[in-house]
């Protein structure tokens, strides 16, 4: 049975915008799924419905067989870690405290009360420390979170999610605020977590090249609907046009200069010289 089942999800915002239209999706445990699409496609809304940050107008979301509703929100959220484009850390608190908040939903009643005084037990501190070591930031544990660079803050966000010991990791445009090199580092980290910890990872991206390099499965969205669902190999020029519209070919083209593509897979011929495609992709 798939880990996440989304059935006929609909969501319309107050200003009339139809963010999700009849979206259905099933995600297997352990897969690395990238949701690709232009701005306003509904990628964020879809992801945020999985941990009920957005409440769908109609349709159901089930995580590990349990259908999400107002009653089990916190329980489901404890199993779902999320990483954000703007990191969403509490800047004034130090890195360790930020990561420790990942443990908040796993505390006993007594520990919960103690946490209100910022007190945490040894196991939780140990888990937090391990998460920090996993992302390579153990040395910065006591620095204020807002003193770290963007890439480091994102890794703290990932450590916080890891501290939850989740089954699912959601990432909403995790690298959009980072430079390409740092962004690559973060994507590599997410992929490594997926493979090693056997976590299900769902990432929203707008960069086609990153999707191609890291995804097991790409789900393309446009105007609130799923318009593509396949492996990166199937993401050819036509598929890209379905997701992004005609403009994509003029801007990006498709070329074999992408080092991750197998040599034999030359896509539809493009009038754009290879060097330009290399630069934009």
């Amino acid at each position, binding site marked *: 049975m798939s880990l996440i089942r989304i059935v006929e999800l609909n969501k319309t915002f107050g200003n009339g915008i139809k963010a999700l239209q009849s979206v259905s999706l099933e995600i297997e445990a352990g897969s690395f799924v990238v949701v690709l699409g232009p701005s306003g496609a509904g990628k964020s809304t879809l992801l945020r419905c999985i941990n009920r940050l957005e409440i769908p107008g109609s349709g159901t979301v089930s995580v590990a067989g349990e259908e999400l509703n107002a009653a089990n929100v916190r329980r489901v959220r404890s199993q779902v870690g999320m990483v*954000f484009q703007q990191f969403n850390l509490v800047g004034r608190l130090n890195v360790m405290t930020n990561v420790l*908040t990942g443990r908040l939903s796993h505390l006993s009643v007594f520990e919960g009360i103690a946490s209100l005084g910022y007190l945490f037990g040894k196991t939780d501190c140990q888990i937090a420390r391990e998460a920090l070591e996993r992302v390579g930031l153990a040395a910065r544990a006591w620095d204020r979170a807002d003193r770290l660079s963007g890439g480091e803050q994102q890794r703290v966000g990932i450590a916080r999610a890891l501290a939850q010991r989740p089954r699912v990791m959601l990432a909403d445009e995790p690298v959009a605020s980072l430079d390409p090199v740092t962004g690559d580092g973060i994507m590599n980290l997410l992929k490594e977590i997926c493979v090693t910890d056997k976590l299900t990872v769902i990432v929203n991206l707008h960069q086609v090249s990153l999707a191609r390099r890291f995804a097991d499965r790409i789900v393309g969205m446009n105007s609130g609907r799923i318009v593509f669902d396949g492996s990166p190999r199937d993401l050819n020029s036509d598929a890209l046009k379905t997701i992004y519209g005609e403009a994509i070919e003029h801007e990006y083209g498709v070329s074999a200069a992408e080092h991750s593509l197998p040599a034999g897979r030359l896509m539809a011929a493009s009038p754009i010289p290879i060097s330009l495609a290399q630069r934009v992709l």
Partner: protein
Amino acid sequence: MTSSISLRWPTRRGLPPLPFVVGIAALLAALSFSARVVELDLGKLAHSFVQLFVFAGNFFVTPDWAYLPDLFARMAETVGMALLATTIALFASVPLAVLAARNATPNIFVYRVARDFLSVVRALPELVWALVFVSAVGLGPLPGVMALSVVTIGFMGKLFAESIEVVDRKAVEGVKVVGARWFQLRIFAMLPQAMPDLIGTTMYIIDHNIRAAAILGIVGAGGIGFDMIESMHLFRFARLILITASIYVLVSLLDHISPWLREKVI
């Protein structure tokens, strides 16, 4: 020489914006109305400046040094009242502020009640509350502390609530999403972010409370106030000069400590 100076405002017609003009007109109307009501007489005002200097001349007397020990005791009492009241108010205000902040309150009803409570408590000045408490518990610093606490809760509660309302929602979302419970969300995401504002507000309020405590003695609620009003009534300028000087020194000291402390903590 023909030079035409044409100045214009940066709007479509070059004229000042309508809301601005209306605002200035309303201000002038309010000013002229108020001036009439308070019987503002510019002639009298000018004459009174001279009187002010004459009165100030009275202060150039030898201070009553024998009064110093009493003075220190009273000043200590004043500062003590202010600090105690501020501390009591601090403990009461933080939970109240959480209830009175739109993003932190459990429901709209509690929010309204908390907000209304805070405004009612702020409505009367400290002196009036001091009168109330003096008739309830008698003379001395206790009613003074009570009066100051009550009013301070009103101000701190309101200011803290507003600080909580403007915290970064993204950070709050980050903690919400890990499955934090109601209290944990406020302790880990909201209050830490509001902390610099809380501390700044507290320092401002300590400053205000010391001055407020200094006059509560007028109604018998402790502090230097009673000595001050008594000296004024009996024209004991030898004491009055010491009293005013000590208040000035105290407030200046606070002015110096405050930015240094702020820097350390924020």
